[in-house]
């Protein structure tokens, strides 16, 4: 299988002001190595503040890395790659655009004609089951519906790679499960490469071909585990013995990092939604 994304010794650090008002250098990623294969579903799993979102932003071209090598299709990542689609945790829908206009955005940017982009967008809106809501504004939709729009919007311009930054993190448990299954269907039909960020063990194992588990900050890939569960996967697979075993295996690798991350004195500047993420990690442990 060909390597789609190749990260070698990627480092990211930036200056922050600490609690005492003194400037210090924070290293978020250090010696980060990861190979993502073409067409695979890879999850990046790690404790809060470990830099997994930072890596995704670098990969998306939204933030520059400090040092190291990062290539996609053998080409160095340098700014935005038009062949990437990004789905953010906070939906990031344009509130002044209807569902249809939101999904059309990427096509509009690519100069696709009005009629054609409407047709394509409606197709993707149909795929995520939101046809009756095409002319609604985002604030009229529920969280789950908004994230479907965001997924349709990222898919509409047919990117090679889909980068998803905790897309289901803000959703309630049931909606989350429904969207996970839908995402799997979409992925199986399109065979795009997906890099999926999550802090949920279950989510990572259920969705992925491989799960890369990260260390606490400064983040690097600690271990990659294969998920040999058969596809297409049904939701019930979570109750299988194999799934539970994988879950246990992943938790053994992750638990020290979670502990470490909680002891770390996280500066406020690192993550805006740090508190929420931490809360979720704790829930995970209790399961």
């Amino acid at each position, binding site marked *: 299988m060909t390597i789609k994304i190749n990260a070698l010794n990627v480092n990211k650090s930036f200056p922050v002001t600490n609690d005492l008002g003194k400037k210090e250098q924070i290293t978020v990623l250090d010696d980060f190595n990861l190979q993502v294969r073409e067409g695979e579903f890879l999850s990046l799993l790690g404790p809060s503040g470990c830099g997994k979102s930072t890596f995704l932003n670098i990969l998306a*071209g939204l933030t520059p890395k400090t040092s190291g090598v990062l290539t996609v299709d053998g080409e160095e990542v340098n700014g935005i790659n038009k062949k*990437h689609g990004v789905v*953010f945790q906070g939906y990031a829908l344009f509130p*002044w655009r209807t569902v249809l206009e939101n999904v059309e955005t*990427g096509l509009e*940017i690519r100069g696709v004609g009005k009629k054609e982009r409407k047709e394509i967008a409606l197709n993707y809106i149909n795929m995520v089951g939101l046809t009756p809501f095409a002319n609604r504004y985002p*604030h009229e939709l529920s969280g789950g519906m908004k994230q479907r729009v965001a997924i349709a919007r990222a898919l509409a311009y047919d990117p090679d790679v889909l980068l998803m930054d905790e897309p289901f993190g803000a959703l309630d448990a049931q909606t989350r499960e429904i969207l996970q299954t839908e995402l799997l269907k979409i992925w199986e039909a399109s065979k795009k490469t997906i890099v999926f960020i999550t802090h949920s063990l279950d989510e990572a194992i259920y969705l992925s071909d491989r799960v890369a588990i990260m260390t606490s900050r400064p983040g690097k890939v600690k271990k990659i585990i294969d998920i040999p569960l058969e596809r297409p996967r049904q939701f019930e697979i979570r109750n299988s013995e194999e799934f539970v075993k994988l879950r246990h295996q992943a938790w053994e690798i992750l638990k020290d990092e979670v502990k470490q991350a909680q002891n770390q004195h996280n500066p406020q500047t690192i993550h805006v939604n740090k508190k929420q993420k931490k809360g979720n990690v704790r829930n995970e442990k209790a399961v």
Partner: protein
Amino acid sequence: MRKLFKFLYNAWYRSAAIIIFLILWELLPRLGIVNSAFLSPPSEVIVAIKELITTGELWTHIESSLQRSLSGLITAIISGILLGLFLGWFKKFEAFIDPLLQLFRQISAFALFPVFILFLGIGEVSKSAIIFWASFWPILLNTVSGVKNVDKLLIDSARSMGASQTFIFQKVVIPAAAPGIFTGIRLGGAYCITALVAAEMIGAASGLGFYILNSQEIFQIPHMYAGIIILAFLGLGLNYILALIESRFTKWKKGLVKE
């Protein structure tokens, strides 16, 4: 039946305060609690308004007031938005110029009136200038903060789809800043009326501000109150029109914020 009752009740509830106010206003001078030479009851003010309308005097004053206020306000809207967009987008320059702007906005338009008269004479231009100065600052500063506070996630989301800077500015920043810009415009509209009256009280021969002051000087008190009330309605009307324009441009917000 029930609906009708509810409608009537709501209509009563929403107008009760005004009705009570009008009754008090009528009674206080009539019962001699307040000197009726200083406070004319509304019945007399209405007669004065009628007279103003039938003689056609009202339109002359409204016309010159509108001309002054609109020329000042429209200039302020156009220049305030353009400069505000520019400053909000070029943050480094904004940080450089901001202290100066903060100082300027504190300079009252009324304090500057003598300066305007020195440079522009006592005619229409200096009156428009004072109105411009008063309404320019809220529009500029609200536009700047509207542009500066655009959610970074929205910009990142557009960038991640490969949007150019032009696209981001036109299709993300401007619509995202629109609510802030309109807040500025409506504030500007309110300040514009205030400044209008002040401008017309100095060296004017027409306009509602002139009419109010002049009526007081020739002791036509009901006409003075008539002028004040018409001015209030002019302000209400201007605010209504601005709100209408706002809701057209930000119709996506419908149902999002209850006004």
